[in-house]
């Protein structure tokens, strides 16, 4: 039987991917290891290789660029010579699927499965006693939260003393639902909504208790056409890119859930500037990647995190996770938007290695060729706005991390040094920390350590 190519899971939280493009044509001979197609993951476009050699067969209904495909859904076949494959994907059995869902033919509403991929149905569409079961007891709070999260509680087993469904049961059930907010939506409607940039929450709000259909999305698109131009006739409508949407979601989540406090201080970077000039002269003469200021800050921050492990942590509702390794993310501006690739095991790396690796990460980010995992697993993040003439600012924490360091411009200005007012190179440092996870004094001590390291960089870069 022909080998089935399915939508891979490219990150822990990935439940669906936007199909990019085929890198091979129907009928092409492919070898295991060849790059077969691309997927637009959460923030990166990834090339996916094929694990089987044979002839690529794209059946009718194979995905086109931009289609939103659930993880595990069938995409194509790799057939051996003389082997036949099904002509169309709609009849194909699900393969490699973790949730057992059918791969829908996106153009055909009649092919919509009756339940959403996780097997949940809206309570309204399913009488509670249809299968002869009595509705389980549920606490008022759990019932309210089930409604908010769109969870069908009649299918939950309660963990209360008498079998009552309580809040934790609903929340656990909600986490297993494929949709981000437990929204029940048909695949066609979901794709239309994604293309039009209409949020699922927005749709769910106008269709409480029932499945969102294509008509609902079309109505929402029509409503938007009417309202937006009426308010601002000359405005340009720029649909959100995928990165913009994810950035918005993460920033909002951080802003709404953390208790951010920003501390600022100023460090004397005179020695750091001198060091960087020396590095530039010496490394470029030898054809090596010249460490930038960012590379130096990365290394110094990692040293400071070693001294203050409480800041090298992740927050979860249950516990604070102190990390044994130090992986520092750094913000990179790209044409697509903001990305934060992660430099791993920073304390173990020399400045030379760091310089070489960050060049690759930045290049990868700008060319959209960074794998999903290259942006995962950071334990701390730094962001530098110095090149735009900014001094202090209030960066937003990159969840689930608990702090982020903002670096300002280096500017020569009068400063008191050895009792004299003299021109010195000064840099503003801004630390935003999550006061839920760490208190002001330890955060201040951490920032002060960075300030000291910046003023004496050689001591710590060689440490």
């Amino acid at each position: 039987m022909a080998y089935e190519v399915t939508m891979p899971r490219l990150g822990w939280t990935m439940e669906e991917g936007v199909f990019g493009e085929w890198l091979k044509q129907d009928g092409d001979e492919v070898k295991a290891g060849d790059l077969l197609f691309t997927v637009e993951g959460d923030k990166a476009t990834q090339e996916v290789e094929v694990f089987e050699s044979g002839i690529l067969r794209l059946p009718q209904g194979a995905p086109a660029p931009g289609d939103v495909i659930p993880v595990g859904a069938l995409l194509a076949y790799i057939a051996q010579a003389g082997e036949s494959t099904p002509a169309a994907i709609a009849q194909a059995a699900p393969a490699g699927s973790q949730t057992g869902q059918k791969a829908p033919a996106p153009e055909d509403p009649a092919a919509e499965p009756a339940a959403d991929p996780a097997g949940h149905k809206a309570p309204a569409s399913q009488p509670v006693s249809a299968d002869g079961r009595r509705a389980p007891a549920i606490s008022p709070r759990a019932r309210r939260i089930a409604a908010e999260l769109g969870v069908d509680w009649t299918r939950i087993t309660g963990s209360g003393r008498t079998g009552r469904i309580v809040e934790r049961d609903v929340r656990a059930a909600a986490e297993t639902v494929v949709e981000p907010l437990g929204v029940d939506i048909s695949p066609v409607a979901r794709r239309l909504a994604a293309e039009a940039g209409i949020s699922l929450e927005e749709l769910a709000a106008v269709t409480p208790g029932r499945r969102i259909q294509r008509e609902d999305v079309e109505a929402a698109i029509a409503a938007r056409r009417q309202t937006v131009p009426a308010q601002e006739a000359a405005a340009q409508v720029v649909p959100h890119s995928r990165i913009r949407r994810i950035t918005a979601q993460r920033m909002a989540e951080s802003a709404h859930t953390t208790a951010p406090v920003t501390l600022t201080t100023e460090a004397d970077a005179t020695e750091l500037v001198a060091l960087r000039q020396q590095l530039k002269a010496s490394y470029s003469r030898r054809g090596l990647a010249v460490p930038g200021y960012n590379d130096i800050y990365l290394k110094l921050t990692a040293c400071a995190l070693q001294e203050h492990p409480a800041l090298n942590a992740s927050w979860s509702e249950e516990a604070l996770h102190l990390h044994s390794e130090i992986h520092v993310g750094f913000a990179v501006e790209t044409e697509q938007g903001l990305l934060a690739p992660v430099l791993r095991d920073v304390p173990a790396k020399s400045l030379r290695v760091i310089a070489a690796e960050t060049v690759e990460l930045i290049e990868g980010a700008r060319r959209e060729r960074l794998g999903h995992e290259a942006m995962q697993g950071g334990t701390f993040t730094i962001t530098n706005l110095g090149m735009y003439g900014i001094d202090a600012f209030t960066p937003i924490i990159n969840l689930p991390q608990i702090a982020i360091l903002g670096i300002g411009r280096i500017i020569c200005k009068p400063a008191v040094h050895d009792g004299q007012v003299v021109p010195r190179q000064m840099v503003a440092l801004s630390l935003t920390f999550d006061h839920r996870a760490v208190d002001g004094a330890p955060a201040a001590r951490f920032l002060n350590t960075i300030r000291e390291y910046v003023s004496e960089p050689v001591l710590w870069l060689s440490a």
Partner: protein
Amino acid sequence: MRELTYVEATLEALDGAMARDPSIFVVGEGIGERGGNFNTTVGLYDKYGPERLCDTPISERGFVGMCAGAAMTGTRPVVDFMFLDFILDAFGELVNQIAKMQYMSSGRLKMPILLRGAIGIGHSAATHHSGSYYPIFAHLPGFRVVVPAIPSDAKGLFTTALQSDDPVLFLEHKSLLFNRGAVPEGDYAIPFGQARIARAGTDCTLVAIGSMVDKTLAVCEKLAEDGISAELIDPRTIAPLDMATILESVSKTGRLLIVDETFQPCGVGAEIAAQAVDKGFDDLDAPIRRLNGAHVPTPYSPPLELAIVPESDDIEQSVRDLLAE
């Protein structure tokens, strides 16, 4: 901060107010030269003399009625019942005159009377000297009912009581009277109807009253070692009752237990539970629980006395049961 006992805290508030306001006087049995059975007026007789620290015979209805008249004429009586149980002998004056006078006079008369006494079970005081009765007074329109749990609250609430134009019942649990705690110097007033969050938490809301606050707080700390995060609220005043703080906490935790030494039927816990169900129904993740003293007259026998009051083990079990719901 310096520490005072609960009684010293109220004494400081009373002394300061008497020094400023000559219309304040104290009436009761043994509150003059003796300084009060519970040291509530120690030293005041020497400062303010027998007219303002007026010892009375055992005649509760008489001296409470006279104080009601005095309050109507513009003075500010403090009636010290020693054991609050004997307020019952003046119940008619309290309910039919003191609580109603402002209403009956369309507000032309004020009733600035402070009624204080020691409440609660302990020290084998037996059934005539162990009552609390605050649910009865909270039931009636017209009274303010104050049940401080810690010395600093006792002082701030006593100051507010001495400024109130309404009759105030200031009820001091016997087991708290000689507890020490940090008390700010100088004058300060804590408004009625503002609960104190004694401990913040996320898993369940515990409302404890009077002597149950410290006991429950210790249980919370023990439960925290097992990863249970309980929020503890001390209402501080039963009337007015700060339901907003309780409801806000329940909206966070979904679970509510009321710990109160007084009898359960028609009690403060019943009132809090009813309001929580009424206004916070959709926040509740479990039945509301109450833990009360036994619904019996208080025994003299120390082991029996111990058995009818909620103790740490009972509180801990009740919290665990609530979380298992």
